[in-house]
């Protein structure tokens, strides 16, 4: 996009620019290039505004009746379920990811192989496929067995598996970023490897990777919408599903827009928190 151009990269080295560009100083040229960018941007925006059919836009995206019909379920059911699905999946994925990361770094070869296979499989499979496998494959493979908490248990497991693969790699990076001397000092005080890992290394590793851990929570919020593949009831519906259902009922996209905005209400503050944490860590490193 035009606005993304860094002014510095637009500046051409002296002598290679358009004929006559030598007449302008680099600063002047940068100003001109910026002016051109803004003009283009405004022109594109204006064209879109003029060309759009505003009546249809209003009906499609800002339809009051359908929007009103979503309340209070949007918050009391859909958002609540999205949050429950995501948090339970994340908590399970966090614990499993940590275990997998420790196995990946273990000195025992079988542990490392199991961890590696797990990571490759669940990182490579589309999340939707994992949902279907857990939701429909598991009951076929193990007749009579059912996960506790019904759909909530299934989602926690499926989302947790998806998250665990990514989180395991994040934890591994964090553990490897903790200086080796920390483990050595702990061992020299008589701690076993696992005790040193749990009490000394892992707590510092988690601090280092809090920003990427939070990013993965944001990603998981979006992945939680895949639970639609399992079939949801009115009580277990979540944001995307509710948006789609109401959208079909009223033949307007407004409910989808509203559902989307609700995701942002959750994820934008999280993103802001990540940036704050990253800034703080960058300052501490200096």
């Amino acid at each position: 996009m035009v606005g993304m151009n860094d002014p510095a990269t637009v500046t051409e080295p002296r002598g290679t620019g358009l004929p006559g560009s030598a007449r302008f100083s680099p600063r002047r040229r940068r100003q001109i290039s910026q002016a051109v960018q803004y003009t283009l941007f405004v022109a594109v925006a204006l064209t879109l505004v003029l060309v759009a059919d505003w009546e249809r836009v209003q009906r499609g995206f800002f339809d009051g009746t359908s929007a009103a019909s979503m309340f209070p379920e949007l918050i009391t059911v859909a958002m609540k379920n999205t949050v429950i699905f995501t948090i339970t999946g994340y908590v399970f994925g966090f614990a499993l990811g940590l275990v997998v990361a420790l196995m990946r770094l273990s000195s025992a070869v079988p542990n490392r192989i199991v961890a590696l296979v797990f990571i490759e499989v669940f990182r490579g499979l589309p999340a939707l496929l994992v949902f279907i496998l857990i939701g429909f494959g598991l009951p076929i493979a193990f007749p009579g067995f059912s996960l506790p908490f019904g759909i909530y248990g299934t989602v926690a497991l499926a989302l947790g598996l998806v998250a665990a693969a990514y989180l395991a790699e994040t934890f591994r990076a964090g553990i490897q970023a903790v200086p080796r001397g920390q483990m050595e000092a702990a061992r020299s005080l008589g701690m076993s490897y696992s005790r040193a890992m749990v009490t000394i290394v892992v707590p510092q590793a988690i601090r280092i990777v809090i920003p990427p851990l939070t990013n993965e929570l944001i990603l998981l919020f979006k992945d939680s919408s895949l639970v639609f593949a399992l079939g949801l009831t009115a009580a277990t519906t979540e944001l995307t599903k509710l948006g789609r259902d109401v959208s079909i009922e009223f033949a307007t996209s407004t409910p989808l827009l509203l559902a989307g905005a609700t995701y942002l209400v959750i994820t934008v503050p999280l993103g802001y928190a990540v940036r704050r944490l990253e800034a703080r860590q960058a300052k501490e490193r200096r």
Partner: protein
Amino acid sequence: MSAAGDGSGRIVEIRGLSKSFGELEVLSGIDVTVEAGEVVCVIGPSGSGKSTLLRCVNMLEVPTAGSVHVSGVELTHRDVDIDAARRMIGMVFQQFNLFGHLSVMDNVTIAQRRVLRRSKSEAERVARENLAKVGVAEKASSYPPQLSGGQQQRVAIARALSMNPEVMLFDEPTSALDPELVGDVLGAMRQLAEEGMTMLVVTHEMQFAREVADRVLFMDEGVLVEQGPPSQVIADPHHERTRTFLARVLNPTHSGE
């Protein structure tokens, strides 16, 4: 268990110790003993294997050949409980290695509580005692990054002391410090030596070695070249290699490097 700790007062006994990293032989056939209450300083050029020797004493590096006994326990025996054995051996590192996420008090109490199973109050009492001994009692609630290097290193000493070790290993404890902070750490070590602690110290501080050590070992290229009282090894070395090294260390401006 073996016969090494038969009351002869030998705390550390290293026999025929060799260590290779792949093809590179870093230590070859080292024999060293440290008697109870003795202070032994190890000197030698960079890369001569001093750190590796020290790290072999508490099995942070596993020797390729030879044996290490500490207080009669053979650490190189394959059935040894290494975690239990390491409790007898305090270690102080060049880079301090304080636990960055824990306060000074927690740094000094965590192993006491988790490893020695001391109560919180008992562990804190021992911690305060040792922090006071090395002169950082008032820093108990600070975090490592808030301390100077000299303070951090003294906390590290207190942390090791709080496990009541039989012997303390120091690997260049002052090399990472600004010159004006070296004195505090050496002072704490000197006091420890006077109290009768058994110490094995890798150091470039010749003044300290001369005044505090009972014995000085000179290492070069993975072998123990010579050993003896500081008055002999430092003041009147027998070997040419020792002489060359000391000339460079004691008179750095005259060396060509």
